[in-house]
């Protein structure tokens, strides 16, 4: 019989996100959970995952969790320490396979808001803005979104469209001039993993996390989420993964300590 492994939601999301990344591909990361998921992938199934930071770090041997997308940990023993122009240009060229994004709001096409809640000129809440999100979301082949799921965040219409998902549906990205064949790929939340329907480009549930019901997913989604007949259960974190997260990647608990 398997021993019951204790973990928090953040750890579960980190493990789920890490499994999406394939070995031998590149990932464009920000701070926090994305770098944790990428570092975990590198230490488990994807040793040849190329981690790239927008501020200029290419392929570092990350010794501890960076606090900033440009801090010295992001290019520690790296293959290259370069410029943002260099990184963003290579993304525009098609070298970045995966891009990680966070979001305050998301809609059914994976369009993301990180700019304002309320109106732009008189915001109820001002958020940091695009940062490199619009760039990653425009230029990476596949973007992975990590965020909390509830009806304030999974909304019919985002208050501000900071970063493009599939915009208004099939063909819309190409029509506005975004690189062909790019777009959101997965959304990982505390409840489950979502993908996007090939034809309609609408968000579709792929798996629920252990103990989560379809009803919970529906109740925390403010738009019509596609729920297929076959929905799997997300594989829970293993003891080995948790040990790497807690002792090697974020021993101070800066990110995974928060659930």
């Amino acid at each position: 019989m398997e021993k019951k492994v204790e973990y928090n939601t953040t750890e579960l999301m980190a493990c789920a996100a890490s499994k999406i990344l394939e070995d031998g591909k590149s990932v464009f990361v920000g701070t926090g959970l994305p770098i944790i998921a990428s570092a975990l992938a590198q230490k488990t199934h994807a040793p040849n995952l190329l981690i790239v930071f927008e501020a200029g770090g290419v392929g570092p041997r990350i010794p501890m969790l960076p606090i900033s997308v440009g801090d010295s940990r992001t290019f520690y023993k790296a293959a290259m320490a370069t410029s943002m122009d260099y990184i963003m240009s290579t993304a525009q060229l098609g070298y970045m396979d995966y891009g990680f994004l966070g979001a305050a709001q998301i809609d059914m096409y994976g369009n993301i808001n990180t700019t304002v809640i309320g109106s732009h000129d008189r915001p109820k809440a001002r958020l940091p803005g695009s940062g490199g999100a619009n760039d990653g979301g425009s230029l990476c082949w596949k973007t992975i979104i990590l965020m909390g799921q509830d009806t304030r965040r999974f909304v019919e219409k985002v208050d501000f469209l900071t970063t493009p998902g599939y915009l208004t549906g099939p063909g819309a990205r190409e029509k506005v001039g975004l690189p062909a064949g790019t777009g959101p790929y997965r959304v990982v939340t505390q409840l489950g993993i979502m993908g996007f329907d090939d034809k309609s480009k609408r968000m579709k549930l792929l798996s629920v996390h252990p103990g989560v019901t379809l009803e919970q997913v529906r109740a925390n989604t403010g738009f019509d989420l596609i729920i297929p007949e076959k929905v799997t259960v997300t594989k829970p974190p293993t003891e080995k993964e948790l040990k790497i997260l807690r002792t090697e990647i974020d021993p101070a608990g800066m990110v995974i300590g928060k659930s």
Partner: protein
Amino acid sequence: MDVLEEGKGELLAWHDPDEHRNWILENKSRSLEDKRMGLKEAVDKFVQDDNYIAMGGFGHIRVSMASIYEMIRQRKQNLIMAGKTAVHDIDILIASGCVNRVEVAYSFGHELRGLSPASRRAVEEGTVKVLAEISNAGFQWRFKAAAMGLPFIPTRVMLGTDTFKYSSAKVVKDPFSGKPICLLPACYPDVVFIHVHRCDKFGNCQIDGIMIEDFELARAARRLVVTTEEIIDEERIRNAPWRTVIPFYLVDAVVEVPYGSHPGNMPYLYYSDEEHMAEWLKLSRSPEGVKQYLENYVYGVKNFEEYLELIGGVKKLNYLKQVEQLRAPLKAPWAER
């Protein structure tokens, strides 16, 4: 070229390329001159009220924080700032009332540490205006267009979004591919501060680690103030000229400020001071706390040297050096639950 769509954000720090060339002709010296001066003098001389300012570095990394504190001490007013992943710099410039307008790629946040209470409050209350939105790649490409002496640069970011609608960019039909493409206007900031590891007295600079967007920003700047950890002999520059990332003729002032990036990170020298950041994030939750921070760390001291004493002096600076070299554990009180 047909303009398909125009952003409604305010076009900031743009010049006709010929007008800018003439400005360069009249204002920038090509002669090898000793440009050393004090920080007080450099800020007083080159920062005018209403200027558009941009800082080298990124987030908490290699930002000329000493210049930020000096601008606040001199109570500069009505500045417009490039929020090109601006973190502590823009937060305290807004909190102190120096900056009242912003072009935003990333602002009002402290990355992993959370959001910035003081500058968010200012935007939500309407005392600070966001004049335009942009993305990080977009900002540095605006500087790149300026660095090339061009009116704009074509890119494939921002298309189809509100980030574009609130920017100063335009979408046109690309005459080669026939596809829509986003044109970002050049951005020539009035004043730029870049903190470097070392330079000579003429302003030939070396930087260790990532360049971020400083290749572009140094050329885009009208006035460029270089603050440096160390001024070195000209011969050391000339023995390794391939290491010069900013040449002297772009530079207007050279200011020696050891630890000038504190409380930020200076790669290979010292890590960010997370205890100081935690103090600011806590204090800045209220206007009274902001006042207390500024009185204590900025107005209450004469210069950056006195500030360094106040934040913990040699003992603290040595500790930050050890953290950078992975020889001491990081203390980050903001991360404690």
